[in-house]
C-alpha cells in the first residue's frame, strides 16, 4: 500500500493576493484581478489584458545577492517557497540536505530576463549579455534557486507540460516522497508578462482579444473566445502523512489521487483523453465519482476545449452531479502556476467548506454543468477534483482530500 502524502504548507503569489491571507478572502468572493497590462504598453497588440501581480517589491523579501540573477518568476517563486515553508513550520536548516527536494513546474522559464539579454545582445553586443542568462531563463531555475538557497539536495527537477504542469509536478513530488524523500517543495510559478512572452502566447492562438475584463475570459459561456494570461502561482510543501504526524504538523489535505493522459493525434478520430485521466485519478485515490464534492475545472474558454472538458466531467461524474468552479476567471490562466494555485484553492475550500465562485460568466446550459457563479457556495466538502490541461494534448487530474 502506498504512503499517504499530504500538504503541510502553502505559499501563494497571485494577482488577487500576495500570500494566502490576502489571496483566500479575494478568491472567496471572486474579486477580479484582470486588467489592462501595466508592466509594458500593450497598445500595439490585439490582446491587452492580464492578471498582474501588483505591489511585489522583490527587494523587500529577498537578499540583494539574488536580485541580479533572477527573473521575476524566480523572485516570486523564492518568496512563495519562503511562505510555504513558514506555513509548514519547517526550517530547512533543521533537516538533512538529502531529505529535501524541489520539483516545480514551468511553462516559460525566465522570459523577461531573457528578453532583456537578447535586447542587449542585439543593441550593444555580446559583451553586454549577463553571465546570469546562463541559467536565469531556464525552466528548471525555480527548482534550482530554491534548492540552492535552502540547501535542498534531495530528488529535484522540473516538469514542463504547459498548464497541466502544476499537477504533474506535485504528482512527481508525491512519487519521490513515496520512494523515501522526507519533504518536497512543489507547485509552479510563472511570469511571462513581457513583450516577448506576450507575442509567444499570442502565437498560440488562444488569447482573448477583448478589452473589457468582464467579458474577456469566459469559460463555459457561449461567448467564450480565449483566455487572459496571468502571472504567479503557488508552492506547496509535501511530506508523508507519517512525517507530518510525527512532528505534529498541521495538514491542509492529502494528495489522494492522480491521473494523466495525452490526447491522441487529431487524425486518429479517437477524441481527447481527459475522461480517462479523471478515471485514473479517482481509481488512484480509491474514490468513486460519487465521492467528489467539487471540481476545480481547467476552464480553457476555447469552445471545443470547454466542450471536451464538460463532456469528460459529465461522462465520469454525471451531468450537474457536482459543483464546478473556475476561480482562475478572476486571475487569468497562470500557466505552470494555474493548477498549483487551483490545488491551494481546493485545499482552502475543503478546510472552510466554501466553494469560491467563477466570475464574469453566464454559464451555457448546453454544457450541463452546475457552475458556481456570482457568490461563493457553502458546502460540506471532503474531496475535490482538480483538472488541468496543457496546450498540445496534456490532460491531468488530481484528487485532494481532507484529512481528519
Amino acid at each position, binding site marked *: 500500500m502506498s504512503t499517504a502524502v499530504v500538504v503541510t504548507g502553502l505559499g501563494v503569489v497571485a494577482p488577487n493576493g500576495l500570500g494566502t491571507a490576502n489571496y483566500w478572502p479575494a478568491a472567496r468572493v471572486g474579486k477580479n484581478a484582470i486588467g489592462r497590462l501595466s508592466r509594458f504598453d500593450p497598445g500595439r497588440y490585439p490582446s491587452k489584458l492580464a492578471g498582474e501581480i501588483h505591489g511585489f517589491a522583490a527587494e523587500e523579501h529577498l537578499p*540583494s545577492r539574488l536580485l*541580479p540573477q533572477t527573473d521575476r518568476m524566480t523572485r516570486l517563486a523564492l518568496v512563495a517557497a519562503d511562505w510555504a515553508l513558514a506555513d509548514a513550520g519547517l526550517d530547512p536548516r533543521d533537516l538533512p540536505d538529502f531529505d529535501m527536494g524541489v520539483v516545480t513546474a514551468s511553462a516559460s522559464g525566465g522570459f523577461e530576463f531573457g528578453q532583456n539579454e537578447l535586447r542587449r545582445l542585439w543593441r550593444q553586443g555580446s559583451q553586454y549579455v549577463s553571465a546570469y542568462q546562463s541559467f536565469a531563463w531556464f525552466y528548471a531555475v525555480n527548482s534550482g534557486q530554491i534548492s540552492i538557497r535552502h540547501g535542498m539536495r534531495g530528488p529535484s527537477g522540473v516538469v514542463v507540460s504547459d498548464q497541466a504542469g502544476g499537477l504533474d509536478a506535485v504528482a512527481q513530488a508525491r512519487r519521490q516522497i513515496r520512494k523515501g524523500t522526507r519533504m518536497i517543495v512543489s507547485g509552479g510559478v510563472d511570469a511571462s508578462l513581457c513583450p516577448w512572452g506576450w507575442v509567444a502566447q499570442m502565437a498560440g492562438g488562444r488569447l482573448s482579444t477583448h478589452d473589457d475584463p468582464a467579458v474577456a475570459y469566459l469559460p463555459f459561456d457561449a461567448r467564450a473566445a480565449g483566455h487572459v494570461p496571468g502571472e504567479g502561482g503557488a508552492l506547496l510543501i509535501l511530506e508523508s502523512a507519517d512525517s507530518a504526524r510525527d512532528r505534529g504538523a498541521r495538514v491542509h489535505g492529502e494528495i489522494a489521487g492522480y491521473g494523466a493522459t495525452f490526447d491522441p493525434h487529431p487524425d486518429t478520430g479517437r477524441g481527447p483523453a481527459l475522461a480517462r485521466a479523471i478515471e485514473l485519478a479517482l481509481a488512484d485515490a480509491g474514490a468513486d465519482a460519487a465521492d467528489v464534492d467539487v471540481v476545480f475545472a481547467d476552464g480553457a474558454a476555447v469552445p471545443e476545449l470547454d466542450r471536451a472538458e464538460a463532456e469528460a466531467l459529465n461522462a465520469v461524474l454525471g451531468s450537474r452531479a457536482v459543483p464546478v468552479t473556475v476561480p482562475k476567471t478572476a486571475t487569468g490562466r497562470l500557466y505552470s502556476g494555474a493548477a498549483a494555485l487551483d490545488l491551494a484553492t481546493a485545499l482552502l475550500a475543503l478546510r472552510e467548506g466554501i466553494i469560491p465562485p467563477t466570475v464574469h460568466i453566464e454559464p451555457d446550459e448546453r454544457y450541463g454543468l452546475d457552475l458556481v457563479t456570482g457568490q461563493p457556495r457553502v458546502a460540506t466538502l471532503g474531496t475535490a477534483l482538480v483538472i488541468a490541461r496543457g496546450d498540445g494534448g496534456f490532460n491531468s487530474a488530481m484528487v485532494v482530500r481532507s484529512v481528519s
Partner: protein
Amino acid sequence: MTGTELTLDELRRVLREVAGADENVDLDGDILDTPMEELNYDSLALLEACGRLEREYAISLDDALDSDHTPRSLIDLVNRRVAARV
C-alpha cells in the same frame, strides 16, 4: 568614459551592481585581502563583475578567473591591464 584606475570603492560599486552584497558580509570593511569566495561571490558573480570591468576600463580579463582572487589581486590585475593599454 573609459576608466583609468580601479579603486577599492569602485570595485565595491561594481560588485554591488552586478551581484548584490551578502547580508552577513561587511563590504565596506577591510576586505582587500579577503578571498572573493568568502565575500560570497561565486564564479558567476566574478564573471559578471569582470564583464563590467572589461567594458568600463576597455581591457580584457579573459584569464582573470584562472586563479582565485581577492579584491587586492583583482584591482592589481585590472590596473596592470589598464597601464598596458595601447
